[in-house]
């Protein structure tokens, strides 16, 4: 059984945190496993946690009438799921589904924010981690927008 | 073997080559330029005609003497004969794909300047084909745009000539020191009326060529050009040249070593097809066409491609420089862009 600490220790995502800082994050997290098909959250719901995927796959989706529910992004091991907890109105902008057996560290983002308020150094490191993850996601999204594989004719 | 020919001897040389079944090509005055065409006799040569050249400038002028090789940097090079502007490659019909017979004649090139002699070797390394019989004409009067000496390609004829002529007109007459460069050249010379060359004849010719070496109007900067171009891929200078360069491609047409071709497909009404190559220029907007657009669209990128290839990446691709210092690109550029000045600008200094 993986404890939050052992789960988070191995993650490149958190490698710039000190051992103590990582322990603090572990302290506000728990490990969960999810079966395929589980809806993690729905668009419009209260965003008060985030997930770090340890193994498995999560799909972010939205509904596009009349096409139905379309996946806009898949998220795999080592990556972060959930951003809307960061900014008001703290409501999910998309939905998320588990598509393969998944183990994740679930972070209580309210408690995480309190930790960051108390310890600005930790807060700064967490911000850098979030910015880095967002940057990677933005760059990959821009690459998709380039539509590189389109047929030039 | 070396001998001295007079004008009659030169005429006889042309006749011997024609009798051997060769098409003799040499300089002629046509359309107010010294171009290259088939010679029937020495009377076809541009006797007494010289040229006045400069950046973006070429005019024929009447000389005070009757020299036949007293000119340079004409709009054509021997490339036209070794690598024709259009050449059929294959035909395709219901019976299959067929090569096209090479119907090029056996050429004798008469009056090949040392720069062009070097160019013939560089070009043939890529395009192959039958070797022409070459009668080189060593330079004793560099043209204003010439810089063969700094490219190591003149004014003395390098290897690859069958016969080398050095023209001289003085009180002792209008004559040519003729030196054989190959056995075939010697055999041809032996059939031409001539007198033996004396040590004075040889010394005068050598002196004339040596003097020409010291009278060059321009030179490339003295450094490794390949390294210079490789180091300047991102130089701001390319944008500066682009403000003047019309990307007209004249330089690539007159350059004796530019070899790029494009392939064209044609079909006739019976459904038979032919593939042919035609001269192409890296300045053409679609030259680098790929996936719906060209890779090099800006003038800066296209000029950079031409100059970098000519002076730099030719070495990487073919083991030799692409430039022989003939100066044609300078004379025939409507904007008067001078490749030696551009090289000097990249090197960061003023041209000496």
């Amino acid at each position, binding site marked *: 059984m993986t404890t939050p600490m052992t789960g988070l220790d191995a993650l490149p995502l958190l490698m710039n945190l000190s051992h103590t800082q990582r322990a603090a994050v572990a302290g506000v997290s728990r490990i969960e496993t999810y079966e395929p098909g589980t809806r993690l959250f729905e668009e419009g719901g209260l965003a008060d946690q985030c997930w770090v995927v340890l193994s498995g*796959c999560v*799909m972010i989706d939205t509904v596009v009438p009349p*096409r*139905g*529910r*379309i*996946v*806009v*992004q*898949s998220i*795999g*091991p*080592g990556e972060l799921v959930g951003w809307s907890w960061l900014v008001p109105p703290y409501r999910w902008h998309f939905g998320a589904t588990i*598509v393969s057996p998944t183990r994740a560290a679930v972070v209580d983002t309210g408690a995480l924010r309190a930790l960051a308020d108390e310890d600005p150094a930790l807060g700064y490191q967490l911000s850098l981690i979030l910015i880095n993850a967002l940057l*990677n996601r933005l*760059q*990959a999204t821009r*690459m*998709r927008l*380039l*539509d*590189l*594989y*389109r*047929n*030039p*004719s | 073997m070396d001998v001295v020919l007079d004008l009659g001897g030169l005429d006889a040389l042309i006749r011997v080559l024609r009798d051997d079944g060769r098409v003799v090509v040499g300089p002629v005055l046509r359309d107010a330029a010294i171009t290259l065409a088939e010679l029937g006799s020495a009377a076809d040569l541009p006797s007494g005609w010289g040229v006045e050249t400069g950046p973006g400038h070429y005019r024929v002028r009447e000389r005070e003497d009757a020299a036949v090789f007293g000119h340079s940097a004409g709009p054509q090079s021997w490339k036209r004969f070794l690598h024709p502007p259009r050449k059929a*490659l*294959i035909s*395709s019909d219901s019976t*299959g*794909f*067929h*090569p096209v017979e090479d119907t090029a004649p056996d050429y004798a090139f008469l009056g090949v300047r040392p720069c062009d002699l070097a160019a013939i070797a560089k070009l043939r390394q890529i395009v192959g084909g039958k070797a022409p019989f070459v009668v080189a004409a060593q330079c004793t009067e560099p043209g204003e745009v010439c810089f063969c000496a700094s490219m190591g390609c003149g004014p003395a004829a390098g290897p690859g000539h069958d016969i080398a002529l050095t023209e001289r007109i003085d009180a002792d007459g209008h004559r040519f020191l003729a030196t054989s460069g190959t056995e075939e050249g010697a055999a041809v010379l032996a059939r031409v009326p001539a007198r033996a060359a004396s040590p004075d004849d040889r010394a005068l010719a050598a002196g004339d060529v040596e003097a020409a070496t010291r009278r060059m109007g321009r030179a490339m900067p003295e450094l490794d050009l390949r390294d210079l171009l*490789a180091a300047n*891929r991102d130089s701001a200078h390319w944008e500066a040249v682009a403000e003047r360069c019309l990307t007209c491609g004249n330089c690539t047409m007159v350059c004796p070593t530019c*070899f*790029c*071709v*494009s392939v064209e*497909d044609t079909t006739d009404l019976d*459904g038979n*097809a032919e*593939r042919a*190559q035609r001269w*192409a220029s*890296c300045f053409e907007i679609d*030259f*680098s066409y*790929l*996936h719906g657009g060209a*890779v090099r669209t800006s003038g*800066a*990128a296209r000029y950079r*491609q031409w100059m970098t*290839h000519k002076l*730099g*990446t030719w070495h*990487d*691709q073919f083991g030799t420089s692409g430039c022989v210092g003939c100066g044609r690109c300078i004379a025939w550029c409507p904007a008067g862009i001078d490749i030696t000045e551009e090289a000097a600008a990249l090197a960061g200094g003023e041209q000496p």
Partner: protein
Amino acid sequence: MTTWVPTPYQVVTRTVETHDSVTLALRPVAESLPRFLPGQFAMLYAHGVGEVPISVSGVPDDGTLVHTVRAVGAVSRALHDALPGTVIGVRGPFGTTWRLDGVEDLLVVAGGIGLAPLRPVLDHPSRRTVLVAGARTPQDLLYADELAKLSDVDVVLTVDRGDHDWHGRVGFVTEPLASIPLDPDRTTALLCGPEPMMRFCARTLLGRGVPAERIQVSLERNMQCGIGLCGHCQLGPLLVCRDGAVTGYPTAEPLLLAKEL
């Protein structure tokens, strides 16, 4: 073989892969060409239309030529539409091969039609083979059935745009590349796809500690002769028909980063 004259091959099978791509299997009409190796290409001639360079997408032992052709222009459209029995002119083999000697972990990264020149390496012996392939949409994924049946390759597929029926990954190909398990010092990475995709994937792999010398890319430029004569395929000092298409990343990187080269 430095000739302009094509060797006649006949289309024996035409397999539709996607809405704009087919795989043609060609057999010699009479004379056959030397063996093509993975990474190499042929100049394929469609009578009266023209010639284009197409990599082999399969190297069967019996000398059949296998090419996956995407219809992007007049010539590729003619080849794409060629039915069994059509005679196609073939010249080749040209170009460099994927360098596979001493391979331990083989990481194959493909974008779009770039999967075609990489398909022949998927069964190369290795300690472990991973394929990460990106496509525009699920309908554009090549060889979907065949990939599903591969037993000794870890196949990671992703699309730029999902749809209602797609339950696989959605994201650019660099995303799974950032997180798949990887032993950088024992990995040989082969990349093929649009230039920006190869640049970004190489950057991701370099960031994960894969040495540049262990990364190979497949470069592309306008090609009209395939035999170093026409000058069109120049990329800096390289003639892609002769010095490529497969190039080591240390050589390729400065060329890929230069603008309009």
